[in-house]
C-alpha cells in the first residue's frame, strides 16, 4: 500500500512538472508576452516601449532559464537601478531593494509562487482566497447533487423498465443534455428577473418583498452565503453533473437487482424496501462513488462557466481572468492546483473502490 501511494505521488509530481512546462511554454510565446506588456504598461504603447518593458521586467531571457527561475532551480534575474538599489525577481518577491538582501533563487522549491500581474498580489494569497470561495460552491453542489443523483438513480434502477424508471431516466438524460450556459441563463430569466418569470407574479401576489425572488448575481455571496444568492449557481452546476451520476447509479442498481442474492432474498419473502435498503444499496453505490470522485474535475468546467456567469470570484473565475490577461504565474499555480485536484480525486476514487469492494486488493 505504501509503495502504491509513493508511486502515485511520484507520477503526480512528474505530471505536474510536464503540465506546468506546457503552460509555461504556451504563456511565454512572444505574442503572449507582448499582450502581457500591453495589459501592464498601457494598451496603446509602442513596440519600443514593449521591448523596454519586457527587458526591465526580466522577460527577455531564454524560456528554459525563466522556467528554472519559476521552479527555483535557476538564479532569479537581477538588475541594478540608477540609484544603486537592486531589483529583480527575488527582490520583488521579498520586497527589498538593498543589494544582496534577497536570496539568489526564489521559486517553487523555495516556497515562492510568484506574483500575479493581473491582481497585483502574491499568487499564493490570490489562489488561497479563491479556492476557499470555490470550495464553498463545490461543497453545496455536492450536497445538492449527490443525494439527488443517488435517489433518482436508485429509484429508477430498482424496477427497470417501469414508468418511474422511464420518467426519471429521461429526466437524467435531459439534464446531461442541458449545458450550464443554457440552464444558468434560463434560471436567471425565470427566477431572478423583475420583468419576466416567477418574480413579478410573486410580487403581485405580495409574497416577496424585493423585486426578485432569487439573486441573479452571486457577488454578495462572498460576504455571506444565503439561500437566495447561492441557490442559482449551485443548481446550475449540480443539474448538469447530476444526470450522469444518476445514470451510472441506475445502471449499477439494475445490475445488482438481477443478482442471485437479491432473488434469493425476494424468494425468502423479504419486503421490497428492505431488500433495496439492506442488500442492494451498498453494492450498487460502489460504481457511483468512483464516478462522483472522477466527476469533481469535470465539474470544474461548469464551475468556470457558472462563476463567470454569476460574477462569483472563485477559482474558475480566477482561471478565466488569468487566462484572459495572460497572468503567467497565476496560471501556472492554477494548473498545479487543477492537476492536484484531478490526481487526488483519482487516488481517492481508487482507494475508495478498493475499500468498498472487498474482492479487489491493491498490488
Amino acid at each position, binding site marked *: 500500500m505504501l509503495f502504491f501511494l509513493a508511486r502515485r505521488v511520484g507520477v503526480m509530481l512528474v505530471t505536474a512538472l510536464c503540465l506546468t512546462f506546457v503552460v509555461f511554454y504556451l504563456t511565454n510565446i512572444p505574442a503572449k508576452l507582448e499582450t502581457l506588456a500591453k495589459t501592464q504598461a498601457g494598451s496603446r504603447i509602442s513596440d519600443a516601449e514593449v521591448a523596454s518593458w519586457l527587458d526591465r521586467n526580466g522577460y527577455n531571457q531564454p524560456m528554459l532559464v525563466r522556467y528554472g527561475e519559476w521552479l527555483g532551480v535557476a538564479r532569479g534575474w537581477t538588475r541594478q537601478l540608477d540609484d544603486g538599489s537592486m531589483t529583480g525577481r527575488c527582490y520583488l518577491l521579498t520586497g527589498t531593494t538593498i543589494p544582496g538582501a534577497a536570496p539568489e533563487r526564489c521559486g517553487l522549491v523555495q516556497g515562492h509562487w510568484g506574483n500575479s500581474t493581473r491582481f497585483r498580489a502574491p499568487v499564493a494569497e490570490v489562489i488561497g482566497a479563491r479556492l476557499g470561495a470555490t470550495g464553498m460552491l463545490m461543497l453545496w453542489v455536492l450536497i445538492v447533487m449527490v443525494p439527488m443523483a443517488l435517489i433518482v438513480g436508485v429509484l429508477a434502477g430498482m424496477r427497470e423498465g417501469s414508468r418511474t424508471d422511464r420518467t426519471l431516466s429521461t429526466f437524467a438524460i435531459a439534464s446531461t443534455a442541458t449545458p450550464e450556459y443554457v440552464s444558468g441563463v434560463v434560471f436567471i430569466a425565470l427566477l431572478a428577473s423583475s420583468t*419576466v418569470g416567477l418574480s413579478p407574479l410573486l410580487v403581485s401576489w405580495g409574497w416577496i418583498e424585493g423585486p426578485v425572488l432569487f439573486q441573479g448575481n452571486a457577488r454578495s455571496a462572498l460576504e455571506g452565503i444565503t439561500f437566495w444568492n447561492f441557490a442559482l449557481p449551485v443548481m446550475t452546476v449540480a443539474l448538469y453533473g447530476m444526470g450522469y451520476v444518476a445514470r451510472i447509479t441506475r445502471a449499477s442498481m439494475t445490475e445488482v437487482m438481477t443478482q442471485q442474492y437479491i432473488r434469493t432474498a425476494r424468494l425468502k419473502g423479504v419486503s421490497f424496501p428492505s431488500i433495496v435498503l439492506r442488500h442492494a444499496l451498498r453494492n450498487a453505490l460502489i460504481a457511483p462513488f468512483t464516478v462522483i470522485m472522477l466527476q469533481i474535475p469535470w465539474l470544474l468546467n461548469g464551475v468556470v462557466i457558472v462563476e463567470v456567469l454569476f460574477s462569483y470570484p472563485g477559482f474558475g473565475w480566477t482561471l478565466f481572468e488569468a487566462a484572459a490577461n495572460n497572468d503567467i504565474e497565476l496560471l501556472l499555480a492554477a494548473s498545479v492546483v487543477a492537476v492536484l485536484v484531478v*490526481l487526488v480525486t483519482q487516488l481517492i476514487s481508487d482507494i475508495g473502490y478498493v475499500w468498498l469492494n472487498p474482492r479487489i486488493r491493491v498490488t
Partner: protein
Amino acid sequence: MMDPLSWLDILGRLLVQLLPVWLALLVLFALSIGFKRRLGLYGKLFDSAVGMIGFALVMFWVFAALFANMIITHDPLAQFSGMRNATPGTPLRDPAGGYEVFLLGGDALARDVFSRMIIGAREVLRIAPFAAMISFMIGISLGLPAGYIGGRLDTGLTFVANLVLAFPVILLFFLLVAPEIQNTAIPRVMAGILFLMPVLFFTVLLNARFFTQPLKRNLYVGAVLVIGLWAYSGLAFNADPFGIWGMSPNLLNVFVAVVFVNAPTVFRIVRGITMDIRTRDYVSAAQTRGEGPWYIMLWEILPNARGPLIVDFCLRIGYTTILLGTLGFFGLGVAPESPDWGSTINQGRRLLTVYPHAALAPALALMSLVLGLNLLADGLREESLKD
C-alpha cells in the same frame, strides 16, 4: 404591409418550411422499419422506442443541415432594417420579393433567428461528428497496441493520455484557442500529427487485411494514400493544390483543441476493452493461426469492441457539441457572426429577459440534438446488450 402572424400561423409555416425534413424522415423510417431484420444492429434500433426517438431527433437535425438551403427563409448573415429584436412572426418592412416574415423573430443585429438556427445545425454537424471521428481513430490507433502489446508502450502512452486528461479542459482551451497561438506553428504541428493518424489507420487497416493479395492491397492502400494525403495536405497545412480541402486557421485551431481533449478518453476506453478481449479464445486462435498483431487488433479485436465504441461515439458527439458551445460562451474559437448554436445562445442570452426568442431557439435546438444523441446511445446500448 401585413400583420404580425399568430403563433398558430407561425407553427403552420414552420411545418411547411421544414417539409423536406419531414419527407426525408418519413422515407428513412419507412425503409428502415421495412427492412429492419436485415440491417443488423442498426435495424435492432427500431425495436426500441427510446432508440427510435433518439434517432429521429438526430436525423431531424442531420436532414435540416443537409437541406438547409431549401429550408431557410433569409440569408443568415443579412441584416434587415427595422427588424432588431423583432418578435416571432414580424413581417419585414420591405421584403423586396423575399420571404415576408421573420418566423422566429430577429436577433439583436436584425438577422433572422430561424434561418440562423437551421444554418447553425450545419455548422455544428460539420465540426462535432468529424472531430469525434478523428478522436476515435486516434484513440483506436493508439489504444489497440497499448492494450494488446502492453509493456513500455502501454506505460508511455497511458502516461501521456493521463497527462492530457489531468489538464482542466477549459484551461487547455484558453491556452490553445487564443489568437496569439493561432499565428504560431503550434496548431499546424498538432494538426500535422493528429490528422496523420486517420491516414495511417486506414493504411494499416487495409494492409493487414489484404497483404496476402498484393494486387488488391496495392489498389486499396494506394487509393487511401492518395485521397488521405490529399485531404491531409489541405486540412493540416492548407496546401491542397486543388483548393477543395481546407480549413480556416480559426476553425483548425478549435478542431485541433477538441480532438486533443477527446482522444485520450477514447484511448483509455479502447485500451480497457482491448485488455479484456485479448484474453478471449478467438484471439488465441488467431495467434496460433499465425496472424500478425495488426490483423488481430484491427480485424479480430476491434469488430468485437464496436458496441461500446458506437455508444460512446454518439455520446461524444453530443459532448463535443456542448463543448463547442462553451467555447462560444467564452468568445473563443469559432468565427464571429457564425450562426453556430453556442455563439448564438451566448449573444442572445443577454437580452433573454426581454427578447427570449433569440437565445431560446438555438438553445432548444442544441438541447434536442444532444438529447437525441443520448437517447440514441441508450437505445443502442440496450439493443447491443441483448446480443
